């Protein structure tokens, strides 16, 4: 009964937004960190229909008479965080049949009701690059999602590009993870890994040449090949290659492949970035780094350093962050920026790395990553300095909708843990806490 009513409410709100009738909402008395531009001590953020209508000093932002006011009493607003590499949503990618599987989409395995998505919301994350694992040279296509609330199917979380296609990248890996000596056609060495990847990209180049040659003559098109289609998208720069790589020599191999095939590239992990920061900067390639509490755990991360952030920053390279959840906890994503600053990164670049840099890495810099007019209303409300351990994310907003509120008991449970916190919710609409499975004592 409740659920029907809930759906009814949803319908009304949908109807309202279709007609563009949503009232504007102004968040006032906020310290705003817009990321692009200087922090605003006494600021107003104005949103309507899921978009930012205005952001600026309280004395300069004009409010209409129908505006809904939310007084934040000095709390901090910053853009929603962008996690450029995560494994939330119980996803899986390629299987053990082959080391390169570009046709496999993580889209087809994600559980939109997984509590890991809510954990990420409670950490202030609003956009995520959900990736398959690193046990293959190519474990398949990644998916960019927005952590909207109320998803019953993965389609509800997708992000569409200008051509109406849902956005995602493709995951590659080198180093030790894809090595499986004696296991079918998997590589046994680093050189073999590179050779197998080159072989596939060359095949994709040939496949693309056939398509280009066919022109408008559909009879001359090659037979559809799902794997080749994905790699062609990568060659055309439409599908970013997210390359898991740790050791300096492995990073150099990735840069070599990047030079040979010209795909759009994001280096992922880059544990030894501090050793070759200049090379990375010279290649104009962005790095998504991770903060781990201790070195090691595997041979190729013996030299991982918190200094990766500052080294790349000083070299002039673009730096973003990722949780690699479950490796680090999405709820504590801001901690990554704090630890990077501890090791010498500037506050500005550390916060930029949590937001705008990630948006750029996902090709969404025009839509998310900063608080600017016309961008998506994805933002978080914090009760203090974003880089303080004592600060909590109090609210998370995606497309102008509140998806996490620490003052709601079920959301609080997600944020701190406790009995039932990890039980997937049957329906997680915030309008009725009673509909939330696992949220009750």
């Amino acid at each position, binding site marked *: 009964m409740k659920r029907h009513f809930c759906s009814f409410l949803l319908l009304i709100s949908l109807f309202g937004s279709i007609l563009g009738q949503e009232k504007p909402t102004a968040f006032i008395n906020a310290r705003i960190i817009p990321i692009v531009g200087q922090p605003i001590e006494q600021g107003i953020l104005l949103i309507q229909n899921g978009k930012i209508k205005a952001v600026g000093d309280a004395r300069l932002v004009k409010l209409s008479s129908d505006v809904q006011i939310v007084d934040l009493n000095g709390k901090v607003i910053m853009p929603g965080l962008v996690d450029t590499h995560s494994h939330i949503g119980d996803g899986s990618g390629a299987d053990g049949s082959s080391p390169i599987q570009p046709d496999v989409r993580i889209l087809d395995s994600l559980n939109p009701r997984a509590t890991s998505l809510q954990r990420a919301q409670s950490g202030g994350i609003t956009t995520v690059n959900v990736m398959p694992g690193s046990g293959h040279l190519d474990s398949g296509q990644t998916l960019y999602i927005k952590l909207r609330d109320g998803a019953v199917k993965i389609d509800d979380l997708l992000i569409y590009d200008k051509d109406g296609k849902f956005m995602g990248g493709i995951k590659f890996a080198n180093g030790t993870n894809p090595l499986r000596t004696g296991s079918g056609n998997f590589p046994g060495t680093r050189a073999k890994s590179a050779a197998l990847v080159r072989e596939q990209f060359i095949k994709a180049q040939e496949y693309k040449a056939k398509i280009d040659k066919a022109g408008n003559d559909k009879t001359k098109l090659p037979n559809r090949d799902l794997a080749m289609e994905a790699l062609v998208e990568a060659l055309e720069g439409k599908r970013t290659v997210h390359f898991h790589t740790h050791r300096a020599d492995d990073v150099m191999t990735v840069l070599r492949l990047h030079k040979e095939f010209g795909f759009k590239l994001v280096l992922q992990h880059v544990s030894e970035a501090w050793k070759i920061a200049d090379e990375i900067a010279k290649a104009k390639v962005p790095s998504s780094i991770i903060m781990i*509490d201790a*070195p090691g*755990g595997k041979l190729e991360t013996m030299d991982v350093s918190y200094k990766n952030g500052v080294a790349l920053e000083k070299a002039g390279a673009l730096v973003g962050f990722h949780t690699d959840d479950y490796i680090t906890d999405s709820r504590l994503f801001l901690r990554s920026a*704090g630890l990077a600053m501890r090791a010498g990164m500037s506050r500005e670049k550390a916060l930029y790395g949590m937001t705008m840099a990630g948006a750029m890495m996902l090709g969404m810099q025009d839509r998310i990553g900063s608080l600017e007019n016309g961008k998506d209303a994805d933002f978080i409300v914090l009760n203090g300095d974003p880089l303080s351990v*004592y600060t909590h994310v109090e609210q998370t907003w995606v497309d102008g909708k509140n998806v996490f509120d620490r003052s709601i008991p079920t959301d609080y449970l997600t944020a*701190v843990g*406790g009995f039932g*916190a990890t039980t997937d919710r049957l329906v997680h609409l915030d309008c009725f806490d009673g509909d939330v499975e696992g949220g009750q004592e």
Partner: protein
Amino acid sequence: MRISNFKFQLPNFMKYLLFLCVLLMIFASFAQAQIAVKGETIWTMAGDPITNGIVLIKNGKIEAVGTELQVKIPSNYRIISAKVVTPGLIDAHTVIGLNGYLNQPHDQMALDGSSPIQPDLRAIDSYNPEEILIGWVRSYGVTTIHTGHQPSALVPGQTMIAKTVGKTVDDVTIVPGAMLNVTLGESAIASQGRSPGTRAKQVAMLRAELLKAGNYKGEPRDLKQEMWKKVLNREIPLLVTAHRAVDIMNALRIAKEFNIKLVLDGVSDAQQVMSEIKTSGFPVIVHPTMYRAGGETENLSMETAAKLKAAGIPVALQSGYEGYVPKTRIVLFEAALAAANGMSRRDALATVTIDAAKILGLDNRIGSLVAGKDADLAMYDGDPFEYVTHCTGTIINGNVVSDVIR
């Protein structure tokens, strides 16, 4: 060694000069052992924090602690200044030293899989004091660790307590056989038809061991029985890792039956059996605040430490056991998150200093800055818990053992 005698050739004279230099350096290093640490804030963990205080260190021990007005620095003392000074941190339960950072079979010595019950395995026989991870945690201010076998078998072995600097296990060890590890619950269920295959079997096997040891008379010598006997004689506690409420209750039931001492470990479900834990009187070494929830730890909470403390239960924090990355956690960071989730800063700091020392039975030696105790200190350039604060130095037994800025 009559240095007044100068009837030497020049080379010999040079040798003497060299010898003198070495002597001087030795004296100098002794002189360095006399240190005055000045702190804008000194968390002594014995009373309120001192503002603008001094800790005097002599011969490896704390000589005096007080304000600048109370404590005069003798002229030959080396002065080290820090914004914040705390007692050296204590990690109440880890596996580093037995497990190493490479995570390869040759440096993973915290679990022998040949049998589920091996109380005769001594931690000291696997301990590598030069393990990289020990230096790593030391550089964040950790000066003492309670380490041992990993909670992946019913009785994986013994634990030990060590300082985090030194060349040999003998140099570093404070307590060679501190506790006996027991693991209850899913992570100690054996696979493929072997025992223990169920919770009930785990308890049955433990009871059988304790019953048998009750009849042990010491002849012929049996290393396993000797260890159980120490438990039955209440010489050492069982360190029982138990996450689910059912496992915590199983541990308490065994302790009651055999009148043995326990230290509860992990306790993800603590909030469900808080009054039972409280009534038992046993202390708790709670899971790391940032521990991953899942399986038997699915109900853990960042607030567990705070709630245990609020209930009046003695509680320490730990870095725990990690199978992958990070290969170790750092108790400083775990305490910081506890402070951000319901604990006062003082109480959170206590979970990795004085309260940890009490649970380990070493509060007469470590855990607070009090005259006569070991000179183990950690120094920070701000609130130790903040992400952006650095550990600027670590002192163990009066020696500066880390001065990298971390």
